[in-house]
Structure formats: structure tokens, C-alpha cells
């Protein structure tokens, strides 16, 4: 199973965690535990830093996309939040979007 957690902080084992470029700021701290980005990396999880607006993956890449406590399809003070159109694009046919611990959508 190939999975990504958009806005992830390592809370789901075995998946790629995506964060926006702001995570590279020395004043960035994770939401759940207040850890710096280097501390998160030291925990051994995989991270990808990229803007939410255009995820660097081909169409139909992932079996599962997770999102937890992230803004969807809106602009925040940091910039565009997670885009549902990108989630739909990068999911494989039959792939699942799990939002806030619940199955949100299965791609036809």
C-alpha cells in the first residue's frame, strides 16, 4: 500500500508525510507534539516538502491519502491549504481518502 499523509507530522506510521515549505522555518513546531522539523525527521519518518497547490506526483500514484486537521480548499495565513482536487488526482482508481480518521471518499 502506497500512502501519503498531507500535512502529516508522523502520526501515521509507514506513510510519506507532506508539509508545506513553512515546515523548514526554524520557528516551525509540529501541531501535536511541538517538535521542530529536525526532531520529526529524527523519528525516522519520511517527509516531503512541497506546496499544497501542486503535489509533485503523477496522476493515480497513491492507494491511500490521509488528512488530519488540515484546511481544505481554502487560503490560510500560510497560503493555500490542502486541495481536494489534488487528492482526487493522485489517488489510484479504487484508492481511498481518509479524512480525520474516517473514510471520506473512494475514487471510482
Amino acid at each position, binding site marked *: 500500500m502506497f500512502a501519503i499523509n498531507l500535512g502529516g507530522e508522523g*502520526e501515521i506510521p509507514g506513510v510519506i508525510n507532506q508539509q508545506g515549505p*513553512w*515546515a523548514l*522555518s526554524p*520557528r*516551525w*513546531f*509540529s*501541531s*501535536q*507534539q*511541538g517538535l521542530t522539523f529536525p526532531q520529526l525527521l529524527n523519528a525516522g519518518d519520511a517527509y516531503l516538502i512541497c506546496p499544497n497547490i501542486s503535489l509533485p506526483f503523477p496522476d493515480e500514484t497513491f492507494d491511500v491519502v490521509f488528512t*488530519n*486537521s*488540515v*484546511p*481544505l*480548499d*481554502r*487560503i*490560510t*495565513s*500560510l497560503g493555500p491549504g490542502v486541495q*481536494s482536487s489534488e487528492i482526487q488526482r493522485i489517488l489510484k482508481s479504487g484508492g481511498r481518502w481518509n*479524512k*480525520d*480518521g*474516517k473514510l*471520506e471518499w473512494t475514487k471510482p
Partner: protein
Amino acid sequence: MTPFRTLLNPVPGLTPGEAQERARQLLKGRIELSVFRWWTRGQSIPADRQFMMLGVAVWSGYDLNLLDHLVSKMAQNSHLEMPVYVFDADCMASNEELEALLPGIGFVNHTPYVGLWKNGELIAKASGFHGRQLVARWFHIPESLVNERIVAAS
């Protein structure tokens, strides 16, 4: 009272983004029915001798969980009756706008946004994980409770 965390729940017929927008619209009414006071960008800073301002995001399980624990704590302890003004964090379009409200808060990347005023002076401010810590310590809520990962109801 309906727990604030239910604002995370999916809404039949709405996309997740639309459900978050609907939750934003519901937040003011939920706040006004609670122990909290509603504050909107553009209003002046409250004149109370001591108060807390708390900017929350309706899409953050952490923030909604914090509100629920705060409601519970304030209901149990009347001596904690310090006004808490809640506002929609998403109404802050930039870090500069937030800095104008909470001078010195610096770069913020997570909600909640928290400021504590006493005798007209901003005596403490923090955001994200550290903002929850500030609220928890001030109101004597165990930090483990406010750092729980909250998911939508099934």
C-alpha cells in the same frame, strides 16, 4: 451543549471543503451559546481587566478539543470565570494581521492563536502546540488532554 468537536463531522451532500466553510459559519452561534464570548476582526480589544483571546480553526481537531475541555473546566470552576474571547483563526489573512492583534507572537504556523491580557497589557501569547499549553496551564487542564489527536465521529 453540542461538543465543539462535532464541527469536524462530515456533512452529507457537502464536499469536505464546503463542510469546513459551513462549520465556520456555525462557529459564531456555537460560541455565543457557550461560556465564551465571540470576537471578530475589526472589533476593538476588549476592555476587561483580565481576559484571553483564542483564535481557533474549525478544521483543527486540536482546537475544537481544546474548546471542549475549556468549557468543561470553566463550568466546574467558577473561580476561573475570566472572559475568553474566541475568534475564527481563518479570518486572519496574514501573519501581519495576527501580529497587529498579538504583538510579538512572531511567525505562526499552527492554530490556536492565544493571547492573555492583564490590566491592559498583553502578558503572554503563543500559537499551535505552545498555545494549547498556555491555555492548559492557565486553566489547570492536564496537557495530555489538550494534545489528544481528535478524529471525526464515525
